[in-house]
């Protein structure tokens, strides 16, 4: 297990580079809205954001309107950008995402984006595996298109707990060979995305993933074990999305081999899969830079 305590061998990934464009803030209109299984797809008329965004980036919404008690922004992956529009897929969960999912065509919303670092591209033509969990698959659509344009054959695995929690299967189907898995077998194969990965790893050169942390960990570990570089878009709790609050950190191994608490909004959300110390998320390992000043000593 590279990139973790007791690390063996060199890392397979370089840190994802910054995006080309800087973010902007806009009040935009919802152009269209469509329920998709358990989710809601919103298409925003947001040309300034659409033209700047790259696959893997996200936007951050202010929620609740002028009377809102909810101050913090909600980060949502960009599921598509083009023709002046940005698409997102929202899973109603807490108060903010529920409010977002209830937006109607014609409503306006304050959004900042594009934010975060995009998925780095492999050498042209490198066969790629994309793994999406739940609404995470939506974030991979733009990447699949860009990979195809660069000559990469693309295989995509979309997994979810049940059929209604799958997303973007159709969109990915136009760009890639798609395998579907569900925990309950209500669509595709019954099982986890990692079960489906096994057969594909041998014929790709890079792995990309987006979805819940447990899945990202399993995908990254599988890729690393197979000697493949992987890039994962993590989902840490974020307050600002723009890099100023320091709430969204997780332990990531840097280029110098040292682990730092890195902000997933500005240094991520895309990290090298072998650089994220998944097992230590939520903990403070002694070898994180600055842990000594917190009174944590080497064992």
């Amino acid at each position, binding site marked *: 297990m590279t990139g973790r305590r007791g690390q063996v061998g060199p890392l397979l990934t370089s840190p994802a580079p910054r995006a080309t464009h*800087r*973010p*902007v*803030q806009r009040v935009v209109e919802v152009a269209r809205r469509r329920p998709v299984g358990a989710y809601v797809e919103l298409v925003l008329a947001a040309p300034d954001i659409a033209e700047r965004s790259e696959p893997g980036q996200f936007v951050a919404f*202010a929620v609740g309107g002028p009377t809102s*008690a*909810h*101050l*913090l*922004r909600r980060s949502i992956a960009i599921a598509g950008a083009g023709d002046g529009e940005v698409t997102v897929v929202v899973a109603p969960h807490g108060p903010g995402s529920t409010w977002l999912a209830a937006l109607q065509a014609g409503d306006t919303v*304050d959004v*900042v984006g594009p934010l975060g670092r995009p998925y780095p591209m492999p050498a042209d033509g490198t066969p790629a595996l994309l793994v999406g969990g739940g609404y995470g698959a939506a974030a991979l659509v733009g990447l699949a298109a860009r990979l195809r344009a660069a000559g990469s054959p693309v295989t995509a695995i979309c997994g979810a707990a049940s059929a209604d929690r799958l997303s973007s299967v159709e969109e990915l189907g136009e760009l890639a060979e798609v395998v579907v898995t569900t925990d309950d077998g209500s669509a595709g194969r019954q099982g986890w995305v990692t079960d489906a990965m096994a057969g594909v790893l041998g014929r790709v050169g890079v792995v990309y993933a987006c979805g819940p942390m447990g899945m990202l960990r399993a995908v990254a570990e599988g890729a690393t074990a197979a000697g493949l570089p992987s890039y994962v878009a993590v989902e*840490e*709790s974020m*307050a*600002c999305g*723009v*890099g*100023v*609050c*320091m*709430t*969204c*950190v*997780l332990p990531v191994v840097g280029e110098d081999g040292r682990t*730092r*608490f890195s902000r997933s909004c*500005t240094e991520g959300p895309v990290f090298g899969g072998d650089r994220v110390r998944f097992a230590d*998320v*939520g*903990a*403070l390992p002694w070898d*994180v*830079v*600055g*842990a*000594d*000043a*917190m009174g*944590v000593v080497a064992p």
Partner: protein
Amino acid sequence: MTLVDAAVDMTTALGAAPIPSPVLTASGCSAFGQELDPFIDLTAIGAVVTKSVQLRARSGRPTPRMAETPSGMLNSIGLQGPGIDGLLADDLPWLAERGARAFVSIAGTRVEDFAELAQRLRGVPGVLGLEVNISCPNVESRGEVFACDPVAASDVVAAVRAAADPAQPVYAKLSPDVTDIVSVARAVTEAGADGLSMINTLLGLVIDPDTMKPVLGGVTGGLSGPAIRPVALRCVWQVHQALPEVPILGMGGIRDGLDALQFVLAGASAVSVGTAVFNDPTAVARVHEELAAALAARGFGSLREAVGYAHR
């Protein structure tokens, strides 16, 4: 609007250091300024108040580090930061190069730490002054927070004032979690503080109804945002009432120009915008514009005329 703005003289000062705008960032709520560069003109705001820096680089606390609360949030970042070396090597030169003013927040767990930090910051280009974050546990007093004890607080401020560049004003940042904030304010002022930053966060706690444990790894955290604004205003009011000559950098829940106006009327000669930046990355610049317009609409020719006006 632009014409109206131009009519109000918005200049003010932190101690003896003049600044072109009374609206600043709040420590820990805009990192070291860089990330706001895409959204606002950092040279036009009063100053970038930096995240509190300590002598050594700090990882900060493990996650979860925050919980959203009604009209506010709880945080327990644990002062993650590069340490004074990193600050001097990277962050301050970046700000100085851009022509942005830095008001450097310093923190420590012993009096000598604070003094050493002040010493290291003497004459550093672009450093306008120091904000002393005394809301830290005092390792020499069983972890009691400096800001909660007038004596410990004054010790820190006296040491910083003695070590600091005489051209750099020293502001003491007060905690609202005290029985009598005026006595702390008086003590640190007598110890040499050139001004007071108020308020820091209130100590709070949130329990996760699913895990049935405190949300934050650090159990308690600091409450900030509009929720605490009435408490912050009360503190500014009380201290300005008791010590009208002491400059106050007011903060706590400021979100728009009328919020800032309330602090100015209560006695603040400058304000910091903290948590609201998480909601709106342009907040600091926007609050400046809105405050200027609000002052103009009320017939003030300058910000200075409005400072403490509600007491008259």
